């Protein structure tokens, strides 16, 4: 996976809570057997009307946010299905960072495994960002090493992240290779638990 540290971009304000993975990537697009190519299906049914035309007032269709790398949403982002196609489609669409007050557990883990940085800010900080982003295009700079999000007006927020995941994201490490370093411990565990 690609290492990630600094990301500077206009934010895309998706002012919704409980955005579930069925909305992020609908089941009819889960049948591919590759990891790539899911971006065009991101939020498909929110972006498109039944006849395939674009939904005018949906934020991803707003010209001002085209090319944005940072998605901002309300709490409990990514709830529901375990489908990793959700972070795949968000990344493939062009986002590298999601900012929300909270995430569903599986989605949060899935982000880490793919180099998509899920930042947790407080509810009021996210509301402030959303309000700024909805008014006019609002650029922020995300810095993972510093664990900060800094707005174009200088307003800065800091966030927490597990040091283990931070290292992984910064270096773009493949977790499986890391785990192979514990082969001896795994083999020992298996020896002691042969009944399983």
């Amino acid at each position, binding site marked *: 996976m690609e290492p990630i540290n600094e990301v500077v971009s206009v934010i895309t304000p998706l002012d*919704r809570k409980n955005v579930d993975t069925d909305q992020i990537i609908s089941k009819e697009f889960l049948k591919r*057997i590759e990891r790539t190519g899911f971006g065009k299906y991101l939020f498909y049914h929110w972006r498109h009307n039944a006849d395939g035309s674009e939904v005018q007032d949906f934020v991803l269709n707003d010209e001002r946010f085209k090319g944005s790398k940072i998605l901002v949403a309300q*709490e409990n982002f990514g709830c529901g299905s375990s489908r990793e196609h959700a972070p795949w489609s968000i990344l493939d669409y062009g986002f590298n960072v999601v900012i929300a007050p909270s995430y569903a557990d599986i989605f949060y883990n899935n982000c880490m495994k793919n180099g998509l940085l899920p930042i947790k800010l407080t509810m009021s900080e996210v509301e402030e960002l959303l309000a700024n982003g909805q008014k006019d295009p609002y650029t922020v700079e995300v810095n993972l090493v510093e664990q900060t999000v800094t707005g174009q007006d200088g307003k800065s927020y800091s966030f927490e992240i*597990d040091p283990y995941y931070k290292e992984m994201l910064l270096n773009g490490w493949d977790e*499986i290779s890391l785990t192979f370093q*514990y082969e001896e411990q795994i083999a020992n565990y298996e020896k002691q638990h042969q009944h399983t």
Partner: protein
Amino acid sequence: MAKNIIEKIWNQHIVYEEQGKPDLLYIDLHLLHEVTSPQAFEGLRLANRTVRRPDLCFATMDHNVPTRNRDEIKDPIARKQINTLQTNCDEFGVPLANMDHPDQGIVHIIGPELGLTQPGKTIVCGDSHTSTHGAFGAIAFGIGTSEVEHVLSTQTLWQSKPKTMEIRINGKLGFGVTAKDVILAIIAKFGIDMGTGHIVEFTGEAIRNLTMEERMTVCNMSIEAGAKAGLISPDATTVAYLKGRRYVPEGQEFEKAAAHWLSLASDKDATYDTMLEMNTDEIEPFVTWGTNPSMGSGISASVPYAKDFESESDKDALKQALAYMGLEEGAPLKSIDIQHVFIGSCTNARLSDLRAAAKVIAGKKVHPSVTAIVVPGSRTVKKQAEDEGLDSVFLEAGFEWRESGCSMCLAMNDDVVPAGERCASTSNRNFEGRQGAGARTHLVSPAMAAASAIAGHFVDVRELEAVHS
């Protein structure tokens, strides 16, 4: 020190621990299906890796499979996914119950059925409803495809120790109230993200009195409350269910295993990071009216008003949900007409679910404006139901009787609810578009689904005579 079951199982599975890192946890059982595994196997191939313990894996085909004509998968991409799983399992030596295999079924139904699911195990699957297996007192949770790949190649996962939560349900369940109503009521009361970061243990008199199949319904939907996993301490009910199943040890070995299982139950004075409580008198047969599983109410209630909510974001969420669902604020739930009924899914497609529905519809006819289907959770369930004649009860009432699979729970195959139409569904998710683009899903128990199939709208199953006899 007194320990709860979550701590006990967790500690028994730590392969490696170090300050500041998640624990490296051993995985005892890895279940696989065709939708979330192809990219994982592909990853193995690209990196020249193997499956470490194929004997601890078990795969089946469920999400995409046709429920009408098994030989005809119209969608070429779905067919490719099904063929890919076959090829992957052949190549890597993973046991597979494919579409033609007598053990085929929804992954969370066949694990317990075969006795693969056992107390004390760590169980994962690339599927969020893996929480179902927690009914046996196992730590069972859904994972993403990268983690599937990680488990395939190392039989372990890095996991931060989750917080623990007890949800205690006091009292006895009222007449006509089922396990499905219990879990829907819990989610409605505490919200769809109450369990985030937690593994939940369900306790209390009402939970103890549930059968294994009912316990699976409750644990199945713990993910809808945001929990990483849900489980129930093993007891005599658990042991009796497992005895004689294919992958469960026999004779003396069984006695030994049973003693170990029972020892895992939470100690009497065990504590939890969070404790929630609910009384059964708060629970009646439930119907969801919105677009997530917490948006539901007892059948005697009505759709809420925006003014009932305090925060602006809750008011907005209600309005968005009702716009999608085509419902008015204040509409009595009993007044909602339905066009489809789906009895199926890993939540409610076991034998007892089909029996409960059959009891309600026996000798009656499906309402002329309703299309109703029954999709047994596995081929074993289907056969058992046919052996006791349930198929004829459904067919005579006007239900369709299908082959097993996920079917209309997520409509990845041909079983789709058309846009704008309403479905009373025994599944677990009522998200927008879950059963088809524009489809409107109402989650209910099997008995409630059956009763609404006959009436053509939601009814209180407790008022039906069939239920009383």
